[in-house]
């Protein structure tokens, strides 16, 4: 038998694999069932993304096909004490917790000011915003994983900020995966709608319990839609600190109105294999985006980040800085596309990909892509991959710091530029410590 036949057979198996992850339940809500059914049809029709697909060249998710993930049925009984390591003092009363994709009412607390709604879909199945916006932005026609997520629509997080409402407390969306007897798949879903003139800070946090001595295998397939109306602001911090044996696919679609602002800090520490797609559309004039990303990985981890920044209207701004730190045999991928459409005159867009490669067994693939169709724009992009500099190391050594401490300090410094931008003090401190401990002790 020829190799080609073997290969095509295994791809067919991969496609069937995706269909095998479809739900065999329905929800009590007809309109959600309709969406689910549409999405399920796409799951059956779309191929499993393989490394032959240009967009998935470097992240080989066929690895997950060896595992039969089951839908999570009953979440384990966790207490607030169990999840204490993840709680943010800034968000004690503005937290929605999902365990293996299921809403955990007893772990959540949403005591919010007037004009701020933070709940889960099933508590507001007739909500007008939910019905009109859900699945509008993260379209599933061509994205197999988005389709799979949509086919599982059930208890997602719904956040709505009414017109001109500024929510002072950060909104914490905590997605916990637990070690289970059989590997489970969960499909977290968020819809965030910031009506005109409103503002909020959002923390989307993917974690694993227990945190020590175990790395369970599971699959998280998350989709987030963020709609930012005219003059509204959303500050979005996304943390991926899954188990080191987990598979994680995340997709965020962000839609920006006139003079609106979107700040993104996406931080990737976890998962065996992860992929984050951030798709941003500036659909009206004068929108502003700041995108910061950090992937800090080691061992055999693969972290793939794809971003698309689409400037469609004039006077938009975007500034992006993505950093990867890769140790031992890990592999980081960054692909950042910036589109400046014909009508997007006076766009000001920068993108910088800076990478630190700590081991000669590690690998970094970075591809900034600029596609400009307007003629009066300011755009700049660049990418660097560097190693720890001998001169920097020597400088620190000559001040009495040993090689290990000097190395950790330089790595920490490299990461800190992104971590420093996280707008929540306790989280910032936690992340700094996480970097220090991942890299060994600094002080």
């Amino acid at each position, binding site marked *: 038998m020829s190799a080609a036949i073997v290969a095509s057979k295994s791809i067919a198996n991969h496609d069937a694999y995706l269909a095998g992850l479809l739900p065999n339940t329905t929800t009590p809500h007809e309109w959600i069932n309709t969406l689910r059914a549409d999405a399920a049809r796409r799951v059956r029709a779309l191929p499993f993304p393989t490394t032959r697909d240009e967009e998935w060249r470097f992240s080989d998710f066929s690895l997950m096909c060896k595992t039969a993930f089951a839908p999570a049925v009953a979440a384990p009984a966790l207490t607030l004490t169990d999840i204490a390591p993840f709680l943010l003092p800034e968000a004690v009363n503005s937290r929605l917790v999902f365990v293996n994709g299921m809403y955990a009412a007893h772990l959540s607390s949403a005591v919010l000011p007037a004009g701020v709604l933070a709940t889960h879909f099933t508590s507001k199945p007739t909500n007008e915003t939910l019905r009109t916006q859900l699945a509008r932005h993260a379209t599933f026609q061509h994205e197999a994983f988005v389709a799979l997520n949509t086919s599982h629509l059930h208890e997602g997080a719904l956040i709505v900020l009414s017109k001109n409402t500024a929510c002072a407390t950060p909104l914490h969306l905590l997605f916990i995966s637990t070690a289970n007897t059989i590997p489970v798949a969960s499909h977290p879903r968020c819809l965030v709608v910031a009506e005109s003139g409103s503002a909020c800070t959002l923390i989307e946090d993917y974690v694993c319990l227990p945190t020590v001595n175990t790395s369970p295998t599971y699959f998280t397939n998350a989709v987030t839609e963020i709609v930012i109306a005219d003059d509204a602001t959303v500050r979005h911090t996304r943390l991926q600190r899954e188990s080191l044996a987990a598979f994680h696919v995340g997709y965020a679609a962000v839609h920006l109105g006139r003079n609106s602002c979107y700040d993104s800090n996406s931080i990737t520490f976890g998962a065996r294999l992860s992929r984050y797609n951030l798709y941003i559309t500036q659909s009206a004039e004068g929108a502003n985006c700041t995108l910061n990303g950090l992937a800090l990985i080691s061992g055999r981890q693969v972290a793939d980040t794809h971003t698309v920044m689409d400037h469609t209207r004039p006077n938009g701004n975007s500034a992006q800085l993505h950093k990867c730190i890769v140790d031992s045999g890990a592999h980081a991928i960054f692909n950042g596309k910036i589109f400046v459409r014909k009508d997007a005159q006076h766009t000001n867009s920068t993108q910088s990909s800076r990478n630190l490669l700590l081991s000669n067994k590690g690998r970094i693939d970075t591809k900034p892509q600029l596609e400009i169709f307007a003629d009066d724009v300011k755009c700049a992009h660049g990418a660097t991959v560097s190693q720890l500099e*001998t*001169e*920097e190391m*020597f*400088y*620190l*050594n*000559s*001040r*009495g*710091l*040993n*090689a290990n*401490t*000097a190395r950790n*300090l*330089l790595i*920490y*410094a*490299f*990461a*800190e*530029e992104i971590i420093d931008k996280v707008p929540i003090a306790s989280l910032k401190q936690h992340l700094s410590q996480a970097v220090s401990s991942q890299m060994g002790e*600094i*002080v």
Partner: protein
Amino acid sequence: MISSSSKIILEVRNLSASVAGVGILKGINLTVRAGEVHAIMGPNGSGKSTFSKVLAGHPSYTVTGGEVIFQGKNLLELPPEERAHAGVFLAFQYPIEIPGVSNSAFLRLAYNTLQARRGGEDLDPLEFNDYIREKSRIVEMDPSFLDRNVNEGFSGGEKKRNEILQMAVLDPTLAILDETDSGLDIDALRIVASGVNKLMTPNNAVIMVTHYQRLLNYITPDFVHVMRGGQIIKTGGKELALELETRGYDWVHA
């Protein structure tokens, strides 16, 4: 005048070193006693920085011959951090910028690391804050520089001042100042030089690499050495620097 019976701090004997396979230092001899100030002058490329970096343990340089005894220890077998712990300090000709690390955090880390090695007390951030503010007065450095990242965006002169602040914090037995005066304006030169003078005790010593006699008006050297082609070809007193200033290096021969 220093008595020749002062304790010897550094003894360099016939030191040779190469970088990237090219011999740069070709048999350097130098004895430094406690309380002494040595100036090293010499044309560009003569090996002054190389000598400084070899003493501090830069990994790119290979010692190909000779020995260096520092306070009775074979300096050359120690990694750079242990040379620092033992009391060797190099003020860099081109200090390195470390974005992402605040100057005060870096200084505290260096200080506490050294304290641990010397069996002294750790300072917590608050205590260190007091300590470092006191030390910054020695070089009249504005405390706002402590909150900035190490050397990042510092002007040439500010970097040099920061080097001497580090020296003040680490309190070395032997400080090697590689062109600390270059890049300093007239006032800054006076301030930094007086800082170095304040840090001098009968128990420590300074090696200053400089191109200009100017610095030596402020910090009086006990010896002036001329380096050329990787060797010290002439040694004199402070008047040698004056002579070099007027006559250049061409007349000096081994």
